[in-house]
Protein backbone atom coordinates (compact mmCIF):
# COMPACT_ATOMS: atom_id res chain seq x y z
CA UNK A 1 0.00 0.00 0.00
CA UNK A 2 1.28 3.45 -0.87
CA UNK A 3 1.93 6.06 1.79
CA UNK A 4 -1.07 7.79 3.27
CA UNK A 5 -2.46 10.86 1.56
CA UNK A 6 -5.82 11.37 3.23
CA UNK A 7 -7.31 9.89 6.38
CA UNK A 8 -10.77 10.47 7.75
CA UNK A 9 -11.80 9.42 11.25
CA UNK A 10 -15.22 9.48 12.83
CA UNK A 11 -16.51 12.07 10.43
CA UNK A 12 -20.05 13.34 10.97
CA UNK A 13 -21.97 16.12 9.35
CA UNK A 14 -25.41 17.40 10.18
CA UNK A 15 -27.26 20.50 9.12
CA UNK A 16 -29.43 22.52 11.47
CA UNK A 17 -32.73 23.47 9.85
CA UNK A 18 -35.97 25.04 10.96
CA UNK A 19 -37.50 21.65 11.72
CA UNK A 20 -34.59 20.11 13.54
CA UNK A 21 -31.24 18.73 12.60
CA UNK A 22 -30.64 16.73 9.46
CA UNK A 23 -27.93 14.19 10.08
CA UNK A 24 -26.31 13.37 6.76
CA UNK A 25 -23.02 11.68 7.62
CA UNK A 26 -22.03 9.73 10.69
CA UNK A 27 -19.04 7.62 11.63
CA UNK A 28 -17.18 7.85 8.35
CA UNK A 29 -13.68 6.38 8.33
CA UNK A 30 -11.59 6.45 5.19
CA UNK A 31 -8.00 6.16 4.10
CA UNK A 32 -6.57 7.00 0.71
CA UNK A 33 -2.94 6.49 -0.27
CA UNK A 34 -0.91 8.70 -2.60
CA UNK A 35 -1.98 8.10 -6.19
CA UNK A 36 -4.88 5.82 -5.28
CA UNK A 37 -8.44 5.86 -6.61
CA UNK A 38 -11.67 5.74 -4.67
CA UNK A 39 -15.32 5.92 -5.64
CA UNK A 40 -17.85 7.30 -3.18
CA UNK A 41 -20.89 5.41 -4.32
CA UNK A 42 -24.48 6.01 -3.34
CA UNK A 43 -27.90 7.06 -4.43
CA UNK A 44 -28.95 10.62 -4.90
CA UNK A 45 -29.38 12.52 -1.63
CA UNK A 46 -27.31 10.08 0.41
CA UNK A 47 -24.57 12.60 1.22
CA UNK A 48 -21.86 12.11 -1.43
CA UNK A 49 -21.50 15.81 -2.20
CA UNK A 50 -21.57 16.65 1.48
CA UNK A 51 -18.71 14.23 2.11
CA UNK A 52 -16.72 15.54 -0.85
CA UNK A 53 -17.20 19.12 0.28
CA UNK A 54 -15.87 18.24 3.74
CA UNK A 55 -12.92 16.34 2.26
CA UNK A 56 -12.26 19.39 0.12
CA UNK A 57 -12.48 21.70 3.17
CA UNK A 58 -15.31 23.66 1.57
CA UNK A 59 -17.40 22.76 4.59
CA UNK A 60 -16.49 21.91 8.17
CA UNK A 61 -17.50 18.59 9.72
CA UNK A 62 -19.77 18.47 12.75
CA UNK A 63 -17.46 15.86 14.28
CA UNK A 64 -14.40 13.88 13.30
CA UNK A 65 -11.12 14.70 11.68
CA UNK A 66 -9.49 14.83 8.29
CA UNK A 67 -5.75 14.42 7.94
CA UNK A 68 -3.92 15.31 4.77
CA UNK A 69 -0.32 14.06 4.60
CA UNK A 70 -0.39 13.83 8.37
CA UNK A 71 -1.80 17.29 9.02
CA UNK A 72 -5.18 17.91 10.59
CA UNK A 73 -6.67 20.16 7.92
CA UNK A 74 -9.38 21.74 10.04
CA UNK A 75 -6.79 23.00 12.50
CA UNK A 76 -5.71 25.47 9.84
CA UNK A 77 -7.05 29.02 9.94
CA UNK A 78 -9.15 30.08 6.94
CA UNK A 79 -6.46 31.83 4.85
CA UNK A 80 -4.14 28.87 5.23
CA UNK A 81 -6.98 26.52 4.32
CA UNK A 82 -7.50 28.54 1.15
CA UNK A 83 -3.81 28.16 0.27
CA UNK A 84 -4.09 24.44 1.04
CA UNK A 85 -6.95 24.05 -1.42
CA UNK A 86 -5.06 26.04 -4.02
CA UNK A 87 -1.91 23.95 -3.85
CA UNK A 88 -3.08 20.48 -2.82
CA UNK A 89 -6.58 19.95 -4.23
CA UNK A 90 -8.27 19.93 -7.59
CA UNK A 91 -12.04 20.00 -7.95
CA UNK A 92 -14.28 18.88 -10.78
CA UNK A 93 -18.03 19.30 -10.39
CA UNK A 94 -21.00 17.90 -12.28
CA UNK A 95 -21.75 21.26 -13.81
CA UNK A 96 -18.40 22.37 -15.09
CA UNK A 97 -18.36 25.67 -13.20
CA UNK A 98 -16.10 27.37 -15.66
CA UNK A 99 -16.20 31.14 -15.69
CA UNK A 100 -18.21 32.04 -18.80
CA UNK A 101 -16.54 35.42 -19.38
CA UNK A 102 -13.19 33.78 -20.03
CA UNK A 103 -11.85 31.49 -22.72
CA UNK A 104 -10.65 27.94 -22.12
CA UNK A 105 -7.00 28.71 -21.41
CA UNK A 106 -7.83 31.60 -19.07
CA UNK A 107 -10.10 29.29 -17.07
CA UNK A 108 -7.31 26.74 -16.82
CA UNK A 109 -4.88 29.45 -15.64
CA UNK A 110 -7.13 30.59 -12.78
CA UNK A 111 -5.76 28.42 -9.95
CA UNK A 112 -2.27 29.64 -10.83
CA UNK A 113 -3.36 33.27 -10.87
CA UNK A 114 -4.99 32.77 -7.47
CA UNK A 115 -1.75 31.13 -6.31
CA UNK A 116 0.21 34.19 -7.43
CA UNK A 117 2.22 32.65 -10.27
CA UNK A 118 3.38 34.72 -13.22
CA UNK A 119 1.04 35.14 -16.15
CA UNK A 120 3.50 34.17 -18.89
CA UNK A 121 4.65 31.04 -17.10
CA UNK A 122 1.05 30.04 -16.42
CA UNK A 123 -0.04 30.47 -19.98
CA UNK A 124 2.61 28.01 -21.09
CA UNK A 125 1.66 25.56 -18.40
CA UNK A 126 -2.05 25.83 -19.17
CA UNK A 127 -1.39 25.30 -22.86
CA UNK A 128 0.57 22.13 -22.06
CA UNK A 129 -2.26 20.75 -19.91
CA UNK A 130 -4.88 21.59 -22.51
CA UNK A 131 -2.75 19.68 -24.95
CA UNK A 132 -2.77 16.72 -22.55
CA UNK A 133 -6.58 16.73 -22.45
CA UNK A 134 -6.60 17.08 -26.25
CA UNK A 135 -8.04 20.55 -26.40
CA UNK A 136 -5.18 22.46 -28.02
CA UNK A 137 -7.51 23.51 -30.82
CA UNK A 138 -10.02 25.01 -28.37
CA UNK A 139 -7.65 27.05 -26.25
CA UNK A 140 -8.96 30.53 -27.09
CA UNK A 141 -12.62 29.58 -27.42
CA UNK A 142 -15.04 31.11 -24.94
CA UNK A 143 -16.25 28.26 -22.77
CA UNK A 144 -19.83 28.89 -23.88
CA UNK A 145 -18.80 27.76 -27.35
CA UNK A 146 -17.56 24.38 -26.14
CA UNK A 147 -19.51 21.13 -25.96
CA UNK A 148 -20.38 19.57 -22.59
CA UNK A 149 -17.58 17.05 -22.84
CA UNK A 150 -15.05 19.69 -23.85
CA UNK A 151 -16.04 21.88 -20.93
CA UNK A 152 -15.56 19.03 -18.53
CA UNK A 153 -12.12 18.37 -20.00
CA UNK A 154 -11.29 22.05 -19.46
CA UNK A 155 -12.46 21.61 -15.86
CA UNK A 156 -10.14 18.60 -15.48
CA UNK A 157 -7.25 20.60 -16.96
CA UNK A 158 -7.97 23.46 -14.58
CA UNK A 159 -8.09 21.12 -11.59
CA UNK A 160 -4.69 19.66 -12.53
CA UNK A 161 -2.88 22.89 -13.45
CA UNK A 162 -0.90 23.08 -10.22
CA UNK A 163 -0.40 19.32 -10.12
CA UNK A 164 -2.29 18.68 -6.86
CA UNK A 165 -1.82 15.28 -5.22
CA UNK A 166 -5.60 14.87 -4.88
CA UNK A 167 -8.45 15.40 -7.33
CA UNK A 168 -12.01 15.47 -5.99
CA UNK A 169 -14.70 14.94 -8.58
CA UNK A 170 -18.43 15.21 -7.83
CA UNK A 171 -20.51 13.37 -10.44
CA UNK A 172 -18.03 14.53 -13.08
CA UNK A 173 -19.89 12.77 -15.86
CA UNK A 174 -23.43 13.01 -14.48
CA UNK A 175 -24.41 15.65 -16.98
CA UNK A 176 -22.99 14.00 -20.10
CA UNK A 177 -24.33 11.52 -22.61
CA UNK A 178 -22.92 7.98 -22.12
CA UNK A 179 -20.33 8.18 -24.92
CA UNK A 180 -18.95 11.53 -23.76
CA UNK A 181 -19.10 10.39 -20.13
CA UNK A 182 -16.88 7.47 -21.06
CA UNK A 183 -14.21 9.71 -22.59
CA UNK A 184 -14.16 11.99 -19.53
CA UNK A 185 -13.96 8.95 -17.21
CA UNK A 186 -11.06 7.61 -19.23
CA UNK A 187 -9.35 10.97 -19.07
CA UNK A 188 -9.62 11.01 -15.27
CA UNK A 189 -8.20 7.49 -15.07
CA UNK A 190 -5.40 8.39 -17.45
CA UNK A 191 -4.47 11.47 -15.39
CA UNK A 192 -4.39 9.26 -12.31
CA UNK A 193 -2.05 6.84 -14.08
CA UNK A 194 0.26 9.30 -15.82
CA UNK A 195 0.46 12.01 -13.16
CA UNK A 196 -0.09 9.95 -10.04
CA UNK A 197 -2.94 12.19 -8.91
CA UNK A 198 -5.10 10.44 -6.33
CA UNK A 199 -8.70 10.40 -7.45
CA UNK A 200 -11.85 10.52 -5.31
CA UNK A 201 -15.05 10.43 -7.34
CA UNK A 202 -18.58 10.77 -5.99
CA UNK A 203 -20.96 8.92 -8.26
CA UNK A 204 -24.23 7.02 -8.34
CA UNK A 205 -22.88 4.87 -11.15
CA UNK A 206 -21.83 1.37 -10.13
CA UNK A 207 -20.17 1.02 -13.49
CA UNK A 208 -17.90 4.02 -12.86
CA UNK A 209 -17.17 2.78 -9.33
CA UNK A 210 -16.11 -0.54 -10.80
CA UNK A 211 -13.83 1.23 -13.24
CA UNK A 212 -12.17 3.10 -10.39
CA UNK A 213 -11.56 -0.22 -8.66
CA UNK A 214 -12.18 0.74 -5.02
CA UNK A 215 -15.42 2.05 -3.61
CA UNK A 216 -17.09 3.00 -0.39
CA UNK A 217 -20.86 2.92 -0.44
CA UNK A 218 -22.88 5.48 1.45
CA UNK A 219 -26.26 4.18 2.57
CA UNK A 220 -29.30 5.33 4.45
CA UNK A 221 -28.52 8.99 4.90
CA UNK A 222 -30.38 12.05 3.78
CA UNK A 223 -33.10 11.56 6.35
CA UNK A 224 -33.92 13.13 9.68
CA UNK A 225 -32.15 12.66 12.97
CA UNK A 226 -31.67 9.03 13.81
CA UNK A 227 -30.70 7.90 10.35
CA UNK A 228 -27.78 5.57 10.39
CA UNK A 229 -25.05 5.59 7.93
CA UNK A 230 -22.67 2.82 7.12
CA UNK A 231 -19.59 2.73 4.99
CA UNK A 232 -18.78 -0.55 3.37
CA UNK A 233 -15.35 -0.68 1.89
CA UNK A 234 -15.57 -2.93 -1.12
CA UNK A 235 -12.78 -4.12 -3.33
Amino acid at each position, binding site marked *: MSSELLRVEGLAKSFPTGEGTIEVLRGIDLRIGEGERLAILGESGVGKSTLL*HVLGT*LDHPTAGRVWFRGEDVFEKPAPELAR*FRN*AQLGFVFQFHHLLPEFDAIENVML*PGLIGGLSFAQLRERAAAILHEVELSHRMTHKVGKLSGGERQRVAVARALLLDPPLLLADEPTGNLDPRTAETVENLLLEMNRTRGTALVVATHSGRLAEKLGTAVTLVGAGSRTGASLAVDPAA
Partner: protein
Amino acid sequence: MMIMEKSSDIAILKAMGADDSVIERIFAIEGTLIGVAGIALGITAGVAVTHQLGWVQRQIERITGIDTLPASVYQISTLPADVDPMQVVVIAGIALILSLGATLLPSRRGARLDPAEALRYE
Protein backbone atom coordinates in the same frame (compact mmCIF):
# COMPACT_ATOMS: atom_id res chain seq x y z
CA MET B 1 -27.62 41.57 -7.75
CA MET B 2 -24.51 40.94 -9.76
CA ILE B 3 -23.01 39.15 -6.79
CA MET B 4 -26.01 36.90 -6.20
CA GLU B 5 -25.88 35.78 -9.82
CA LYS B 6 -22.23 34.99 -9.29
CA SER B 7 -22.63 32.74 -6.27
CA SER B 8 -21.51 29.59 -8.06
CA ASP B 9 -18.52 31.45 -9.51
CA ILE B 10 -17.63 32.55 -6.00
CA ALA B 11 -17.91 28.96 -4.82
CA ILE B 12 -15.57 27.65 -7.50
CA LEU B 13 -13.09 30.46 -6.86
CA LYS B 14 -13.08 29.45 -3.22
CA ALA B 15 -12.63 25.81 -4.18
CA MET B 16 -9.58 26.87 -6.18
CA GLY B 17 -8.19 28.54 -3.11
CA ALA B 18 -9.25 32.14 -3.48
CA ASP B 19 -9.27 33.78 -0.07
CA ASP B 20 -12.29 35.86 0.98
CA SER B 21 -10.24 39.03 0.63
CA VAL B 22 -9.38 38.19 -2.99
CA ILE B 23 -13.04 37.67 -3.90
CA GLU B 24 -14.03 40.84 -2.11
CA ARG B 25 -11.42 42.76 -4.09
CA ILE B 26 -12.55 41.29 -7.43
CA PHE B 27 -16.13 42.42 -6.88
CA ALA B 28 -15.17 45.77 -5.42
CA ILE B 29 -12.98 46.50 -8.45
CA GLU B 30 -15.59 45.27 -10.89
CA GLY B 31 -18.33 47.29 -9.20
CA THR B 32 -16.19 50.41 -9.07
CA LEU B 33 -15.25 50.09 -12.73
CA ILE B 34 -18.91 49.74 -13.67
CA GLY B 35 -19.71 52.76 -11.50
CA VAL B 36 -16.93 54.87 -13.03
CA ALA B 37 -17.89 53.83 -16.57
CA GLY B 38 -21.52 54.69 -15.87
CA ILE B 39 -20.61 58.09 -14.46
CA ALA B 40 -18.32 58.89 -17.42
CA LEU B 41 -21.07 57.88 -19.83
CA GLY B 42 -23.65 59.89 -17.95
CA ILE B 43 -21.52 63.05 -17.89
CA THR B 44 -20.63 62.75 -21.56
CA ALA B 45 -24.26 62.30 -22.53
CA GLY B 46 -25.41 65.05 -20.18
CA VAL B 47 -22.89 67.61 -21.42
CA ALA B 48 -23.51 66.67 -25.06
CA VAL B 49 -27.26 67.08 -24.71
CA THR B 50 -26.84 70.41 -22.92
CA HIS B 51 -24.55 71.72 -25.64
CA GLN B 52 -26.91 70.63 -28.37
CA LEU B 53 -30.11 71.62 -26.63
CA GLY B 54 -31.19 73.84 -29.54
CA TRP B 55 -30.79 70.93 -31.93
CA VAL B 56 -32.68 68.59 -29.60
CA GLN B 57 -35.49 71.12 -29.37
CA ARG B 58 -35.69 71.46 -33.17
CA GLN B 59 -35.82 67.67 -33.63
CA ILE B 60 -38.67 67.41 -31.14
CA GLU B 61 -40.54 70.18 -32.94
CA ARG B 62 -39.87 68.57 -36.31
CA ILE B 63 -41.06 65.11 -35.27
CA THR B 64 -44.08 66.18 -33.25
CA GLY B 65 -44.94 69.28 -35.28
CA ILE B 66 -45.44 71.21 -32.06
CA ASP B 67 -43.85 74.57 -31.43
CA THR B 68 -42.41 73.81 -27.98
CA LEU B 69 -41.88 77.47 -27.03
CA PRO B 70 -44.51 79.48 -28.93
CA ALA B 71 -43.52 83.15 -29.16
CA SER B 72 -47.07 84.10 -28.18
CA VAL B 73 -46.56 82.55 -24.75
CA TYR B 74 -42.86 82.76 -23.96
CA GLN B 75 -40.36 85.57 -24.26
CA ILE B 76 -37.71 83.09 -25.41
CA SER B 77 -37.76 80.68 -28.34
CA THR B 78 -34.82 78.49 -27.24
CA LEU B 79 -34.00 76.96 -23.87
CA PRO B 80 -31.08 78.60 -22.11
CA ALA B 81 -28.32 76.01 -21.48
CA ASP B 82 -25.10 76.41 -19.58
CA VAL B 83 -22.63 73.80 -18.27
CA ASP B 84 -21.20 74.69 -14.90
CA PRO B 85 -17.99 72.62 -14.56
CA MET B 86 -18.13 72.80 -10.77
CA GLN B 87 -21.62 71.34 -10.78
CA VAL B 88 -20.48 68.49 -13.02
CA VAL B 89 -17.61 67.67 -10.66
CA VAL B 90 -19.86 67.69 -7.59
CA ILE B 91 -22.44 65.44 -9.23
CA ALA B 92 -19.78 63.01 -10.45
CA GLY B 93 -18.32 62.91 -6.95
CA ILE B 94 -21.68 62.13 -5.34
CA ALA B 95 -22.39 59.46 -7.95
CA LEU B 96 -18.99 57.87 -7.28
CA ILE B 97 -19.60 57.77 -3.54
CA LEU B 98 -23.04 56.23 -4.04
CA SER B 99 -21.71 53.58 -6.44
CA LEU B 100 -18.88 52.70 -4.05
CA GLY B 101 -21.36 52.30 -1.23
CA ALA B 102 -23.52 50.11 -3.43
CA THR B 103 -20.46 48.00 -4.24
CA LEU B 104 -18.40 47.51 -1.11
CA LEU B 105 -21.07 46.07 1.17
CA PRO B 106 -22.35 43.48 -1.32
CA SER B 107 -18.74 42.62 -2.17
CA ARG B 108 -18.05 41.82 1.44
CA ARG B 109 -21.23 39.78 1.72
CA GLY B 110 -20.43 37.93 -1.51
CA ALA B 111 -16.96 37.08 -0.29
CA ARG B 112 -18.37 35.49 2.86
CA LEU B 113 -20.67 33.20 0.91
CA ASP B 114 -20.61 29.55 1.98
CA PRO B 115 -19.21 27.60 -0.99
CA ALA B 116 -20.75 24.25 -0.04
CA GLU B 117 -24.16 25.87 0.18
CA ALA B 118 -23.75 27.63 -3.17
CA LEU B 119 -22.70 24.40 -4.87
CA ARG B 120 -25.90 22.62 -3.76
CA TYR B 121 -28.10 24.69 -6.03
CA GLU B 122 -27.76 24.09 -9.70
